[in-house]
């Protein structure tokens, strides 16, 4: 019983804290007027965050290497996206290459 109360407390903490992160960024942005160059830097910062997210989700699992299959799929997707392939092709290629490599025994 206390176990599940604790789980609920943890869930509430995570949900409320996550919303607070989302909202405080927006409130910060609404209160400060940024010059145009700073605005573009903020967008660039978001792109850097997203690029880091791509790298870590593609290459790592926990604190270690994810294995070759997933980054290989993401690499193929990146090449296709760079060559302006349709989004559908890019995303499905990532899954297909990764699944195929795993089928062949590459982890």
């Amino acid at each position, binding site marked *: 019983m206390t176990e599940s109360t*604790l789980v609920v407390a943890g869930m509430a903490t995570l949900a409320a804290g996550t919303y607070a992160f989302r909202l405080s960024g927006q409130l910060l942005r609404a209160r400060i007027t940024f010059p145009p160059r700073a605005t573009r830097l903020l967008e660039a910062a978001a792109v850097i965050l997203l690029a*880091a997210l791509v790298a870590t989700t*593609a290459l790592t699992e926990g604190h270690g290497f994810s294995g070759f299959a997933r980054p290989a799929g993401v690499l193929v997707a990146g090449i296709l996206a760079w060559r302006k392939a349709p989004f559908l092709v890019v995303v499905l290629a990532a899954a297909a290459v990764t699944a195929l490599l795993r089928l062949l025994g590459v982890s």
Partner: protein
Amino acid sequence: MRSIWRTLDRRVLADIGLTCLAVFFIGLSYGAVAVASGFPLWVPAAQSVLVLAGASEFLFIGIVAAGGSPIAAALAGLLVNSRHLPYGVALPPGVTGRRWGRLAGTHVMNDESVVFALAQPDPERKRAAYWACGLGVLACWPGGAVIGGLIGSAVHDTSAFGLDAMFPAVILALIVKDLRDARMLRAALAGAAIALAATPFLPAGLPVLLALAAVLLLLRAPATEASPSPDEELAVLR
């Protein structure tokens, strides 16, 4: 809602639809993993609606299932979700809605809705893309989690289908146009390298935040890059 369909062209809507479908499949595995780890179905169901941030929910379930304290699991999840603060700063005012609408719009802020918003050229389309993707994820992530929890072990091993490669591929496909600029590409690669180098040593979530240090590469006077015209500079940072 109607204005979303009128504002966005078909291709963008199709891309958002595919992204939401990918989110649905990852949601299936999330629900299945949570139930297989011994959680009642309402745990992933409530989390998926109230937290609405996949990676942190997986982490929460994983830590608690391994015997960790739920409060420690929540703090680890919050570290992972701290990137939503810079996301909120990066989104131009009005994208998430106005006044009370913004309180709701803020909740559907996630990697996917942010990246689709940033990819749009003007404020109105940014707002439409943000809401379309945000609401799509709000439907597909909990929907996937609940169905995954119900069918359980049948979808336990999604790695066989390579679904784990879809999330990074979606994000990469959407930022690739920004990466065509040499300075932006350099900064993004530096950020990725920082995050990867930090991953073995730091708790999840922190490495991605550290990547923000790469913004410093863009602060240098653009004059060093053969003085681009204002237009070119705009392209650099868009």
